[in-house]
């Protein structure tokens, strides 16, 4: 910035400020003061902790870094945590700045695996094996119960660097289909891509909504539905062949050929490329214009996202969640959660790692987990018919409790089962929620049932860390999808074969070979130690 003169003026302005002409200064100082008092916890060691700022804390509840939950944590926990709000949208940028200037909090949580990997490579975070062994109680116990935590936390040097949370494996994405349309047109649930194509064709051309107009789309192609079609053909970039991890070009071509067929036959929204995050498709689904669509069944909020608006628009709509059709590559799960999710690291410069460990221990305990998730029993929550705590008054709960989810990044939901999942949170008394419960069950079956496997070798968050050099290559080759998208929409003038040829060319020129060698090598050396799909499936609910 314009330094020389700025400094001069800055100095003058500081003088002005110093004379306290403006009440602003004293005001700012004051607020700082009460914050540290609020906790009322003398004698506890102090640490700093990052917390996402999402702008969703109601004003009367205070702020994300100073509210009834931070007070509760500081009063009941072993240390005094001072929270540093990290705006969610720019979390990586902000944390990078704090790390670079030496101001980063002692305990840092971020969802971005790549960012935590970067911190590891820059040696900004510490190995925690000894800390856990010496100072942990509840996290250590958790780790003994779920040894996968250790597997997932290990970095290439073999030591653990991360803390995480364990959840039951459930269906995350769901392949929804309009059963009333199937019945009306006398179709059956598609079991293969070919049948899927036929159903989509019928949904588009045979006026399933009966309004006399050809105004429906068979299937969505943007957002998560597009990804699900890729998954159907196991187009997940890296696939196993003869025990080796290789790039799945053939799968990619097959998936895009299928999409091109859908597009050429006019069964999808022609503007799907403009619908970057699938919002348009979701709106079309909600207004009853799309017959096959991928939504989610993982959180009670999904009812209002994917089901309630549809039922309001089309009261007769009947939805089922089906299995992904089986392609020549197999039958795959549409999408599941990451049962062992790493979230938290300790800053290498933390002054008191032991206190940080104690904080993590406390936040991972069942006591803290239940309090943060359900609030105070009797005030926020009551035990329902199924013996699970649930909100007593939805409005009060959302005002006082529901925004604290980012304090639950170390809470292992699996320990609260069967009371943590969506199955226990929906109310079977309400017709809409009852129907959605049915969808949740169908989707768990569709994702986790017999004969369904996970398309990728492991969840994206457990794929290995790329070095800087390889990340650049990765970014460069990501343009490959542009070629395929072009092929989908270009009709006869640009075929999938041409796209493949161009993609391959770009791949070779950008050094894709290095990337392939890295993955092959990684798989070869860590096929016994890394966290794979079979490990994920350990966390599926056993009947």
């Amino acid at each position, binding site marked *: 910035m314009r330094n020389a003169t700025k400094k001069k003026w800055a100095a003058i302005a500081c003088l002005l400020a110093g004379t306290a002409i403006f009440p602003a200064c004293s005001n*700012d100082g004051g607020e700082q003061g009460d914050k540290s008092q609020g906790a009322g916890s003398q004698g506890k060691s102090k640490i700093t902790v990052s917390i996402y700022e999402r702008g*969703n804390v109601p004003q009367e509840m205070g702020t994300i870094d100073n509210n009834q939950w931070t007070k509760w944590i500081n009063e009941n926990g072993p240390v005094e945590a001072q929270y540093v709000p990290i705006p969610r949208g720019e979390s990586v940028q902000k944390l990078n700045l704090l790390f670079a200037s030496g101001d980063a909090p002692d305990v840092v949580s971020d969802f971005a695996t790549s960012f935590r990997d970067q911190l590891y490579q820059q040696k900004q975070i510490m190995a925690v094996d000894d800390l856990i062994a010496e100072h942990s109680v509840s996290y250590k116990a958790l780790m003994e119960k779920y040894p996968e935590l250790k597997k997932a936390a290990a970095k290439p040097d073999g030591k653990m660097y991360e803390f995480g949370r364990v959840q039951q494996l459930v269906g995350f994405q769901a392949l929804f289909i309009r059963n009333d349309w199937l019945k009306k047109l006398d179709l059956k649930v598609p079991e293969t891509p070919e049948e899927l194509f036929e159903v989509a064709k019928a949904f588009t051309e045979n006026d399933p909504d009966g309004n006399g107009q050809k105004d429906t789309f068979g299937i969505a192609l943007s957002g998560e539905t597009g990804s699900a079609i890729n998954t159907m053909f196991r187009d997940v970039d890296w696939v196993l062949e003869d025990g080796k991890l290789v790039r799945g070009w053939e799968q990619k071509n097959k998936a895009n050929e299928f999409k091109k067929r859908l597009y050429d036959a006019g069964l999808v929204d022609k503007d799907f490329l403009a619908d970057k995050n699938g919002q348009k498709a979701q709106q079309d689904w909600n207004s009853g214009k799309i017959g096959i669509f991928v939504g989610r069944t993982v959180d009670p909020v999904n009812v209002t996202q994917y089901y309630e608006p549809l039922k309001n628009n089309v009261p007769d709509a009947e939805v089922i969640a089906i299995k992904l059709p089986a392609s020549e590559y197999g039958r795959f799960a549409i999408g599941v959660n990451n049962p062992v*999710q790493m979230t938290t690291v300790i800053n290498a410069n933390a002054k008191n790692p032991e206190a940080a460990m104690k904080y993590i221990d406390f936040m991972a305990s069942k006591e803290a987990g239940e309090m943060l998730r359900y609030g105070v029993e009797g005030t926020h929550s009551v035990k329902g018919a199924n013996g699970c705590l649930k909100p007593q008054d939805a409005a009060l709960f959302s005002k006082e409790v529901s925004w604290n989810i980012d304090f639950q990044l170390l809470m292992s939901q699996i320990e609260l089962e069967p009371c943590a999942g969506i199955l226990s949170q929906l109310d079977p008394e309400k017709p809409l929620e009852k129907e959605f419960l049915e969808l949740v069950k169908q989707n768990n079956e569709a994702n986790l049932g017999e004969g369904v496997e996970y398309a990728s070798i492991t969840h994206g968050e457990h794929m290995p860390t790329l070095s800087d050099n390889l990340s650049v290559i990765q970014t460069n080759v990501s343009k490959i999808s542009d070629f395929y998208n072009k092929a989908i929409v270009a009709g006869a003038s640009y075929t999938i074969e041409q796209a493949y040829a161009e993609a391959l060319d770009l791949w070779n020129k950008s050094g894709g070979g290095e990337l392939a060698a890295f993955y092959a090598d990684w798989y070869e050396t860590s096929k016994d130690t890394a966290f794979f799909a079979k490990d994920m499936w350990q966390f599926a609910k056993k009947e």
Partner: protein
Amino acid sequence: MKPSRGERIYSIAVYIVLSIAGLLCLLPLVHIASLSISSMQAVASGHVTIYPVGLSFDAYKQLFEGTPIMKSFMNSIWITVFGVLFSMVFTILAAYPLTRSYFFGRRTYTFGIVFTMLFGGGLIPTYLTIRSLELINTYWALWLPGLVSVFNLLVLRTFIENIPNEVDEASRIDGCGEWRYLLQIVLPLSTPVLATLGLFYGVGYWNSFFNVLMFINDSGKFNLAVLVQQLIQSQMLLSQMNASGSSEQIVLSPEMVNAAAIIVMVLPMMAVYPFLQKHFVKGVMIGAVKG
């Protein structure tokens, strides 16, 4: 004089082009405004385009009850009002001497000031400087580094230079000193450019996002721009992250609440514009024509 046929066609064409350009700017805003006062049902089904569908003010209710928007709003006002005040004072105090021919070394000063436009310190050095001045977490971190914008300074200097020298001489003869000349002659003559610069600074401070994001570590001090961005980003991120297979689950703020937040953010600046517009047009042309 009657316009010729060609002129008439030309002006019709101009009107059409400008109307289209105007609509291009206006329609997105109208769309957002309509989203913010439509029912959730209509928004989720994509029925809202230009007109609100199923009139409902729930979004605003949710916004004011469920987010700290009032606090952020007050913070934004605070930042803007004091920021504009400080910036104006120092811009004026810097510009005036540079117009005086008897000010020793004014070319060197001007060069020095313009020279700073060529490069910046980079984020991390700036952060470290601000931290060593102990300005982190205070609004001084927003006000001081950009206190005087060189561009605005030059605009003001040029304007003052164009005040005829005779005015200066006449007031000197009547016994007018520097301060009186500045405050009672120069400033009243410069209202158009002062209004313009005030608006430039005001919009800048009102929209300040990155500096707040980087230099403020206290939720209670975030301004509207940061709040609105976080509300919107949380939603965007969710869909992006999903593509990479992340399982972040959050309570989304519905689209219409985001729309309402955007409206709350742009309204004050839109309200200010009409009052300053007549000065604005005059002020922006300053320096365009040298007489």
